[in-house]
């Protein structure tokens, strides 16, 4: 069953990129065995850091709560398998490109014994949405598209808005990454079940599952499951394979023809977007009581011997994962967690796979682009920018540190997709420059605010001192006047008293 493609909005720009996904989608998902050591970063979400609730030496079971955050924006971390906590210490993590962050290190015992659960949870359709959301919070579910925003909080915020659509993001437009494709091929039923749970939580009636047209098997499988289900509320949509249509704001525009306001969220445009992986994770938790302790990851690139998709426990190190798939080739030069355009270049393979890791990409030497030349204002970058910015203007203003112009021309709306870099004939590293400029804008704004405050306090102080001085002056003038009026006798008296005092000292 092919999906209808009408009603699509228009996305400006974007590029058709070589997908490089065929080698990793040739074989079904392999389940990776539990590694000897699991390294679990305490914070695997956007928001305030979590804190551990277990101690060193403690024995833990699969699915047991290891860390939770007490602030409003956070998500818990669960043990990916049973074993003993042997350390809680800094360990290299991909979030910091190889620098360290606090991690809980578990030596697995191989038994994979799950934690006892209360008897089966009630049917989710009988639960109030708020109760359902609290339940989702306890599952450690975060956005698996890469943003790792705590899902429960995202849904809670969405409930305060006027929503029209739930959109499941199966687009996966970035080269090399194919984990969502394989998920849709093999676990379509779970994804759709997750969609139903989400629709109940949000009280929505329309859900679009959006898939790119270069994924015929996924479209086929999803279509079959939907046909059997007869749920008219869930609609499969096909979009052309253009990078970066998978970005949240871009997807909203493409599917509903609405623009997400600058600085706003898709909920401002009446849409909630969730990755298909997140939907499947919600199903696993709400229906099967398994918290987020594993995910599908694409191991690929010409630096690995056998590209494939694996289902790995969260906390498996990249080194273990690559070993399992057959190791590196001789040409392994660059390790990237993520995709070709927006991934993180990581300095060591000791980093663990976390909830955000959708792809391990090992490349042979990336060719150096050649010397950077001045911008010739060709406008290629503006042609491909999905947000319709003018990167050539942003570049001039970034070089000039012109904070006001950078804001005016929309630097904060840049999604750092990297399309402009690819088409620049002068080989200017635009995305990197914009990232730096965004940091610079924040820095400059902070500096300005501080300087303004210091100036106000300085001027206030000067006013205060001036006031005190003028008070003293007027008092002195009054004294002088009264002394003069009193007459020379009084002055002589005062002088005599003063002489006496001096003699006494």
């Amino acid at each position, binding site marked *: 069953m092919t999906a209808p493609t009408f009603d699509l909005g228009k996305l400006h720009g974007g590029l058709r990129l070589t997908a490089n996904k065929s080698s990793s989608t040739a074989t079904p998902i392999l389940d990776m065995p539990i590694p000897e050591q699991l390294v679990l970063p305490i914070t695997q979400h956007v928001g305030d850091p979590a804190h551990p609730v277990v101690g060193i030496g403690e024995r833990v079971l699969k699915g047991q709560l290891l860390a939770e955050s007490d602030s409003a924006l956070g998500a818990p971390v669960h043990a990916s398998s049973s074993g003993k906590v042997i350390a809680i210490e800094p360990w290299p993590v991909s979030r910091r490109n190889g620098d360290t962050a606090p991690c809980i290190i578990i030596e697995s015992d191989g038994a994979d014994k799950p934690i006892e659960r209360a008897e089966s949870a009630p049917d989710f359709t009988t639960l109030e949405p708020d109760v359902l959301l609290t339940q989702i919070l306890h599952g450690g579910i975060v956005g698996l598209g890469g943003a790792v925003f705590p899902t429960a909080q995202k849904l809670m915020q969405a409930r305060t808005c006027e929503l029209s659509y739930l959109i499941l993001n199966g687009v996966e437009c970035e080269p090399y990454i194919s984990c969502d494709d394989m998920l849709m091929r093999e676990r379509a039923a779970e994804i759709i079940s997750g969609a139903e749970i989400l629709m109940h939580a949000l009280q929505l009636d329309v859900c679009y599952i959006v898939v790119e047209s270069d994924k015929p098997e996924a479209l086929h499988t999803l279509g079959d499951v939907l046909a059997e289900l007869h749920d008219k509320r869930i609609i499969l949509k096909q979009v052309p394979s253009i990078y970066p249509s998978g970005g949240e704001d871009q997807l909203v525009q493409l599917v509903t023809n609405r623009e997400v306001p*600058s600085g706003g969220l898709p909920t401002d445009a009446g849409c909630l977007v969730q990755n298909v992986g997140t939907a499947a994770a919600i199903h696993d938790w709400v229906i099967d009581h398994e918290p987020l302790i594993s995910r599908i990851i694409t191991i690929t690139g010409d630096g690995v011997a056998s590209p494939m998709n694996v289902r790995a426990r969260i906390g498996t190190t990249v080194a273990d994962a690559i070993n399992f798939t057959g190791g590196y080739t001789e040409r392994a030069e660059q390790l990237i967690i993520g995709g070709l355009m927006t*991934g993180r270049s990581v300095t*060591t393979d000791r980093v663990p796979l976390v909830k955000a890791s959708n792809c391990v990409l090992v490349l042979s030497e990336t060719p150096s682009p050649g010397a950077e030349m001045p911008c*010739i204002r060709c406008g290629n970058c503006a042609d491909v920018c999905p947000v319709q910015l003018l990167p050539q203007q942003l570049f001039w203003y970034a070089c000039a540190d012109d904070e006001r112009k950078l804001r005016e021309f929309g630097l904060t*709306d840049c999604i750092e997709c990297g399309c402009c870099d690819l088409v*620049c004939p002068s080989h200017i590293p635009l995305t990197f420059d914009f990232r730096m400029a965004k940091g610079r804008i924040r820095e400059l704004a902070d500096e300005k605010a501080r300087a303004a405050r210091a100036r106000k306090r300085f001027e206030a102080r000067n006013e205060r001192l001036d006031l005190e001085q003028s008070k003293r002056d007027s008092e002195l003038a009054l004294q002088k006047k009264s002394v003069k009026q009193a007459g020379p006798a009084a002055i002589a008296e005062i002088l005599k008293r003063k002489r006496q005092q001096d003699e006494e000292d």
Partner: protein
Amino acid sequence: MDFPHREAPYVGPKADVAALMLQVLAALVPAALAHIWFFGPGFLFNLLVAAIFAAAGEIVMLRLRSRQAETGLSDFSALVTAALLAFALPSLTPWWVTASGALFAIVIAKHLYGGLGFNIFNPAMAGYVMILVAFPVHLNLWVAPRMGDIDYQTLTMLQTLQFTLTGLLPDSISFDAISRATPLDAMKAGLNNMQTVTEIKALPIMGSIGGRGWEWVGIFLAVGGIWLLIKRIIRWQIPAGVGIGLLLPATIIYILDPGANPGPGFHLFGGGAILCAFFIATDPVSAASSPKGRFVFGLGVGLLIYAIRRWGSYSDGVAFAILIMNMSVPAIDYLTRPHIVGHDDKAERH
């Protein structure tokens, strides 16, 4: 295993400035060959002299600015400037006129404004205007086109070279025998003399649409330009703008008074209109950079070309039109900023 750290994206750009410039030069080759066929080898010598002096100017200025001379030359932008200058000049231009034009273009119009990417004015046009104003007589040495029925004499390659270098013709040949005015010159002179367009178009110098020989050069230039459009080296907005800006008033005024005004076809194939539309106005550095802005820029160029041709004292207004519109580019860019997704333009821009 350890790895180096790099910044995203992890794939290199496919485009390249040198490749861009070379493709522009390639698009000029058919027209260059047509030029040489119809008007003799003078074009080649102009190109050579312009290229040598442009390169020399580039090297000297880059050294003075403490930059790498090789990087500057290897992007071929100086060569493109030289080629466009050569197309604008008559075949028999003396070498020192071409040389000063090329030097002015590269040294003053390009490097003194900041070098590649920073110049406000199109260097080739700035150079052309400078020598047009400084050496007007020498810029009238147009050769008659090769056509069987015109009464003229051709110069051999050696004779052309001799004239270019020394300004001397062989004794047997007089200047009047080898040169003719351009079609635009002839049209302007004829109209000033109260001749009708039909009469002027009967002159042997005139071809079917534009001038003899010139219309062929124009056709090959258009072919090259369309090839550049297909390869997306240039975008359609500027050529379309120039075309409409030039042909719309030309058509209207021709319809109103056909006797005293040449038609749109003549305007299109006469002078440097096609060269301007596809190769000169599309210079990315000095043109506007938003899509709407580009169209407005092209439109302005076309309108100014027509205005100067019709009411000005110069027979062709391409160079001045370009320079005037170059000056308005910052304003055009500011006023034609595209809508940013998610921004409320009304709220922000008022």
